[in-house]
């Protein structure tokens, strides 16, 4: 009996390592097709606890639904964010608090926020964020992304709040007067020696229209340069859109896009208008002709 027990023990000691190490595993994988083992990668970040929470205090957001400032003024949109950390306010990393404004197709506007110490509580800090928006930022719904991290790099953000930007129409143009050097009676296609450069100071792309008046002689006002004899073009020359007396005429091809006109590339946020006097009557006499009596021409964005 004792011999049998010894023999059984020895047999078990021989078989068990073999079976557990490969044989059973091989048989298992042979029958089931499943692996008996696989490598598993483990990555453990040891942090200082929970991520902070970010709350955008809605009542603090500057209302710009009526529109932004026209150029060259920027518009400051302010908001306050409250960062709470269960580990206490000392766990919040002040330098990581950001407010970012986004809208599809638009440049992102962002700022690092500044702590408002008097509003600290045991577990939270409040930060003020003053984001500057530019005059060409388009009207519509913008989303706020407020984010924060703690001293252990636990990151959190809040993108639940949006705000509306209104539309602003505005532009400047220079110079104040369009002038011709000297013109003979019966002349044709006389271009002005200067032209208008327009800057869009608002946030909407605009078409251009011009309302024209007659130019009456300042000494003899029976002599007239007719509004209908002028044309305006976006290129130098005399092939532009003919004007109509006391009526707004859309200028073909003229577009005043929104943008940073300070680039001064005559494209971004800018447009040029060239003036031509297509016909001069034969009866015109030597004197000064101007819009003084019928009133100025008006360039309008529509």
């Amino acid at each position, binding site marked *: 009996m004792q011999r049998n027990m010894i023999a059984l023990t020895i047999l078990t000691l021989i078989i068990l390592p073999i079976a557990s190490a490969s044989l059973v595993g091989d048989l298992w994988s042979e029958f089931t097709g499943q692996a008996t083992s696989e490598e598993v990668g483990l990555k453990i970040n040891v942090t200082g606890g929970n991520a902070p929470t970010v709350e955008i205090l809605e009542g603090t957001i500057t209302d710009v639904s009526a529109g932004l400032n026209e150029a060259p003024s920027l518009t400051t949109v302010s908001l306050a964010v409250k960062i709470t950390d269960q580990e206490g306010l000392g766990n919040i990393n002040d330098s990581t608090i950001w407010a970012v404004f986004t809208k599809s197709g638009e440049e992102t506007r962002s700022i690092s926020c500044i702590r408002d110490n008097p509003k600290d509580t045991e577990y939270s800090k409040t930060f003020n964020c003053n984001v500057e928006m530019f005059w060409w930022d388009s009207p519509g719904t913008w989303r706020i992304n407020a984010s924060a991290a703690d001293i252990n790099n636990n990151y959190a953000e809040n993108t639940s709040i949006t705000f509306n930007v209104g539309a602003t129409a505005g532009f400047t143009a220079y110079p104040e007067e369009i002038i011709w050097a000297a013109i003979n009676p019966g002349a044709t296609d006389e271009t002005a020696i200067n032209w208008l450069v327009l800057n869009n100071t608002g946030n909407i792309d605009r078409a251009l229209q011009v309302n024209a008046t007659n130019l009456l002689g300042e000494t003899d006002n029976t002599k007239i340069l007719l509004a209908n004899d002028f044309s305006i073009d976006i290129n130098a020359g005399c092939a532009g859109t003919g004007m109509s007396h006391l009526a707004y005429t859309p200028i073909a091809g003229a577009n005043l896009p929104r943008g940073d006109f300070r680039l001064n590339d005559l494209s971004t946020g800018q447009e040029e208008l060239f003036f031509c006097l297509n016909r001069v009557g034969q009866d015109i006499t030597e004197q000064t002709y101007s819009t003084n009596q019928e009133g100025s021409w008006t360039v*309008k964005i529509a």
Partner: protein
Amino acid sequence: MKNKIKFIFGIFLLVALMGNITAFGVSSPYWTGNPLNIDRGETMIVELNLQNMVGDDDVNVEAKLVSGSEYAKLKETQFLVKQKTSNTFAPLTIKIPRNVEPGIHKIKVEFKSIADDTGGMINVGTGMDVSFDVNISENFAKREINYILIGGIVLTILIIILIIFLTKRKKKKRK
């Protein structure tokens, strides 16, 4: 040279080339593509905001309602927009009658600077259209209860009752 027309010379030319048109801007909470949604019987005031952040001079601006006069009305039509300001408001009252059909109606206001005579050949002023759609819904606005009016009527009735009561009492005493 006899028949030649001479318009501008020398120093005037230089000045003319340097000058800027006095310009202004108008902001609006509504624009083409972002309509004002409103119920039948509702009245709203849309504040159009005139700005003059660019120029160094005050600007006189004239406003004119071009479209939508059946529902919209400008309280004022002349505005002095001071330099470096953005807080001159042009209130536009939108009043929708209760019996109007629902639908979309266009409102367009034209703003124009009143240009000074600078003595040039063609003086150029600036203008801009501010337009948006008014989307009148099928809903009716709730009638607002005028508590002041009701209170006034009740008070008047009470005073009349009191006067009648006192008058009768006096008559009884005389008898």
